[in-house]
């Protein structure tokens, strides 16, 4: 699905990965771990470029449209599925069908009450759920998410992560919570200073193995 052979990744003039070789197969749920600045976001952006049309994208700071409602922000995941004029109609006057479809997703994410509240009136954790809702509603095969549950408490984070992984057969998720990674994913890739320091299936790893990444 994704592959890099001795690739050089990063911003123009400054490489984050000098020499990256990586394969990610269909059906894998990969957790990206590593201290901040280790290249997680850079790698996610590069992955997205490889499969832009198949990726449900969930960037770090959610990047929602703050003055629009939860409904509209989730709907935006499906803008490419409909004709622009139908989208325009739903922006001004949401159809009953869309309201019930998106209402269901919002309810699963605990946002049923807030369906027509604008995102700028929500907490950080709620906004993250909206971003996840958009990813789910995009109905794409591959999820690429950057710290999607960082503002949600640990218990809810686990439930949310399981839910969203259930709707995307393949996923690469940058996380900082090591136990969350072990509980939800099938494979862990540990990054450190632009190098893959660890790459192993989850069932062969313990929390202590992961702690080594950050030392």
């Amino acid at each position: 699905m994704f592959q890099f052979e001795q690739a050089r990744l990063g911003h123009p003039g400054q490489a984050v990965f000098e020499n990256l070789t990586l394969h990610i197969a269909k059906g894998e749920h990969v957790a990206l771990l590593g201290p901040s600045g280790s290249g997680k976001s850079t790698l996610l952006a590069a992955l997205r470029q490889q499969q832009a049309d198949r990726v449900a994208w969930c960037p770090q700071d959610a990047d929602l449209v703050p003055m629009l409602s939860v409904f509209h922000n989730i709907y935006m995941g499906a803008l490419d599925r409909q004709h622009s004029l139908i989208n325009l109609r739903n922006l001004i006057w949401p159809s009953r069908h869309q309201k019930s479809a998106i209402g269901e997703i919002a309810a699963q994410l605990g946002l049923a009450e807030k369906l027509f509240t604008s995102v700028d009136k929500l907490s950080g954790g709620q906004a993250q759920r909206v971003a996840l809702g958009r990813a789910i509603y995009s109905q794409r095969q591959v999820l690429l998410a950057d710290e999607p549950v960082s503002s949600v408490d640990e218990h809810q984070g686990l439930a949310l992560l399981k839910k969203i992984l259930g709707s995307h057969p393949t996923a690469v998720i940058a996380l900082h919570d090591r136990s969350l990674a072990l509980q939800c994913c099938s494979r862990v890739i540990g990054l450190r200073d632009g190098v893959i320091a660890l790459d192993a299936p989850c069932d062969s790893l313990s929390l202590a193995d992961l702690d080594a990444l950050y030392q």
Partner: protein
Amino acid sequence: MTPSLNTTASGWRRTSGLLALAGLLALCLADLGISEVSPGHELLRMAQGFLSPDFSSTEFLWRAVANTLAFAWQGTALGALAGFCMAVCWQWRAVRTVAASLRAVHELFWGLLLLQLTGLSTVTAVLAIAIPYSGIFAKVFGEFLEEANPAPAAALPSRSKALSVFFYARLPLVWQAFKAYGGYRLECAIRASAILGFIGLPTLGFHLETAFREGHYDQGAALLYLFFLIIFTLRWWLRPALIPVYLIAALAWAPPVINIKPAILIRFVTEDLVPAPLRQGGGISELISWLSTLWQQQLWPGLWQTLVLGMGALLVTAVLSLLLFPLISPLFGNRVSRFGGHGLLVVLRTTPEFFLAFFFLILLGPSMLPGILALALHTGAIVAHLTGRFSESLSLRADAPNGLNRYAWEVLPRISPNLLAFLLYRWEVIMRETAVLGILGIHTLGFYIDSSVAEFRFDRTLVLIVATVMLNLLVDALSRGIRKRLRLKPGHGVG
């Protein structure tokens, strides 16, 4: 049960919906007829003129340019000085009220009044610019000072003299902003100075009006090109070090010599401006009947037409801004389309709405259509420019959609508060300009003001001008109220 609607966007939508409804109603009521028989033919002739401008009548050309610049320089300098003095006392309500009334009367109306006192002279032109500009400068400078960081002044030793505190800890903080704003005002003053030609002062506008009225479009085009040249090159020739040179040159070219006999001034204030029934020894009842006649015949029709034209123009302005801003926004189009967009917007916002209205009047004949088109094209270009510039600060996510989806879902909601704020700021300006377009023959308040001056009925002129001031203050208060209620932040670069 559907969850309740509680979005930030819906508040803006309600307000813009109400304003749009008012605008739509105004457009239904407005006279939008085209009375010119063959506007296409005239447009063709005008286009030919613009393609082959005639710079041959050089003598009056250069004279007009020099006059335009001299009046603008002197007017701006005097206005800035007086405005600065008022800004220093900005905490006093009386000063703010005086400044508000000074700037609520348009340069052309000041010009019409001053013509009666000082005739076709430099003083008339300079004061017509300086008086309203002092009010504008006072407001802008006053607000700069108010918003400046108070900490440096608070940190000075106690018992420092107020004057020293001002020059050491207040003025330096805002000096750069003052200078930048002064430059912008000079550009406005050049426009105003050119327009003063329409009431007879010897600036570019005077020759422009003559040329276009007589159908010499090639000569008119030359004048307009010169005008553009002056404005576009402003940033190169406007150097702080050269300001004294320009000012001295302006004074030397057109010395503002006041020769007014005190008797004329006294007569003007104590007799001409006094309502006719009082002047002729009548009482309150005569005054009331005079006022009610004036109301029925001039004030109400003038106010109504001004309101209808202004509200219609506001709606068309909003629509044009929405259509035009993507032309220069880096979120849409490519390098070529943005270059073209910048060119179009620069020409539209540099050409004064008064000129545009004049051209459209020639093309389409007298109705409200030329006024609405002129105001909407000029203001729409300004708002589109500011909105486009604001959109540069937006960063969209990597998977943001393109085309119409990008416009409607990602960009429009984000720019709405700014666009709305820009439009509400401009509303007052649109109303001011609407009143003035009457001088061209559109039946807004300015038409009645112009006629009353022509009939030497200055008592009526005064009442009509006061009516324009009231209308402006009302619109200003309304616009401020809406902005406050929606918590719209002032955008950058709003002048």
